[in-house]
């Protein structure tokens, strides 16, 4: 299978800055993957996200080296408005990405930009409202919505354009834990239903550890580790660069130090329960 996103030695430096925000990024993301990108503040996660839909280099000026191919398109040679049909992007601040006076209009906005006929727009609005379970929000204005609802609307507005890839840059930064969990469940759900590729940048590792397929760890502009969650989280480099490792993984490692080996590092409560049950029944 061919990767849907491929970065070859991708580097970028913002205009007027000395240091490289991202350096020599090499990665392959395959269709349908749910990828987590994490790392300390300033590691380049947001910069990398901006590359995926062409905001870098078209909206943000600077020096770009290397290559990034997204769904067969070279991001340097294609404008964001063209890439936007294949890559949807949800930003950290729920409010500032909703620009219209009602949820319905917000979802319609992208489709109007694409000059789609009115009946198609109507259909797609109904479709995404249903997929995200927010039909009751159709006529509401953004200030009437909670942060979690606003993010769902942002996702809906992107999905209406039928992208193959959805990128979310710390979408739960301003949300409380319950709304965050609800959002992650929705993401997992739509990945399964629509088979789209999801790239999620997050700090809240304990909530997403068991739902993602691949984890990419960044530090100081470079990828320091990539792989499956179970392999990545127990790697000592993760703690060394100052990432908040999920508590269950810390427990796994602590037990290991005391000569108790669980079968595998647990990524959620259910797995941990299973492993402990097995352990304590011996």
């Amino acid at each position, binding site marked *: 299978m061919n990767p849907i996103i491929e970065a070859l030695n991708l580097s970028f430096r913002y205009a007027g800055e000395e240091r490289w925000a991202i350096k020599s990024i090499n990665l392959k993301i395959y269709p349908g993957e749910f990828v987590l990108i994490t790392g300390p503040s300033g590691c380049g996660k947001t910069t990398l996200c901006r590359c995926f839909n062409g905001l870098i280099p078209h909206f943000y000026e600077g020096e770009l080296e290397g290559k990034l191919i997204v769904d067969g398109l070279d991001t340097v040679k294609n404008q964001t408005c063209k890439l*936007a049909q294949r890559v949807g992007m949800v930003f950290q601040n729920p409010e*500032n990405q909703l620009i219209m006076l009602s949820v319905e209009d917000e979802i319609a906005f992208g489709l109007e930009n694409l000059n789609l006929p009115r009946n198609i727009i109507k259909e797609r609005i109904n479709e995404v409202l249903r997929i995200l379970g927010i039909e009751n929000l159709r006529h509401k204005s953004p200030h009437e919505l909670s942060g979690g609802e606003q993010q769902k609307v942002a996702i809906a507005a992107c999905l209406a354009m039928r992208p193959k890839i959805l990128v979310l840059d710390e979408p739960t930064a301003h949300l409380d834990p319950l709304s965050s969990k609800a959002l992650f469940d929705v993401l997992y759900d739509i990945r399964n239903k629509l088979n789209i590729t999801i790239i999620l940048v997050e700090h809240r590792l304990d909530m997403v550890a068991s739902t993602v397929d691949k984890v990419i760890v960044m530090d100081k502009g470079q990828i320091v580790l990539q792989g499956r969650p179970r392999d990545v989280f127990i790697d000592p480099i993760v703690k060394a660069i100052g990432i908040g490792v999920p508590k269950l993984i810390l427990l796994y490692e602590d037990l290991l130090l005391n000569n108790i080996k669980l079968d595998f590092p647990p990524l959620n409560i259910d797995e941990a329960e299973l492993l402990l049950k097995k352990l304590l029944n011996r």
Partner: protein
Amino acid sequence: MSLGIFQGFKFNRNNTILHNLDPRAKLVYILSVLTLSLIFSELYPMLILFLSTIPLVIIARSLNEWLRSMRGGFMIILMIFLLNYFLLPAENALSLSISLALRFLTIFSVFSIFFMTTYPENLAIALIKLKAPYDYTLTFTMALRFIPTLAKEAQTIIDAQRSRGLELESRNFIIRIKRLIPILIPLFINSLRRASQIAEAMESRAFGYSSKRSYFHELNFTLYDILFTLSCIILTSLGLYIKFYLGYSETLVLARPWP
């Protein structure tokens, strides 16, 4: 932070005939009333004109907001009345100043009716159909969208700075202005930041993809719109006829007691 005067200009979601009229028909209405209010300056016509707007307010079920708005504009209306009362020639000072105050009230009233009963998205479409460029109507819609956000942010900034001992009250006007700086600077910078985030979001949803765009909302001129527009035109023509052809002039002249 909602002054009474603005209440009468805020859109409300009632479902009345007036709300469902095409904004263009309502614009014709405004033009008609404006024309009539300018060609007449006599007391009786101005009074009739002003009172004619009230049934519309009632149909729009917006009487409370409209009253609040009138109360808010009271100061300005009083000022207009007083200035004219004292400065006009004595012989018709009273009747003329009342007429002029009524003129202002009437114009105020029809604009209030317009904004209270027009869906912002329909207003945007109406402007587009009247050949306004899309970018401008989008700017207009987005301004409406972000005004409450800005207001909330201003309050947050005021709270934060007051918590650092900033006292906004002061006898001295200059000091009061100076003390606004810690409020205005963060507000301004955050607005720039917000504008950038908005632009990113718009680009990410293919804004600028094509010079041609489709529109989700549609506006159709219905029978009601045609009838309404026709009535406005007929009444305006009637007014013009009465004033200029029949030579209507003041029948009730009230003077100021002193010259």
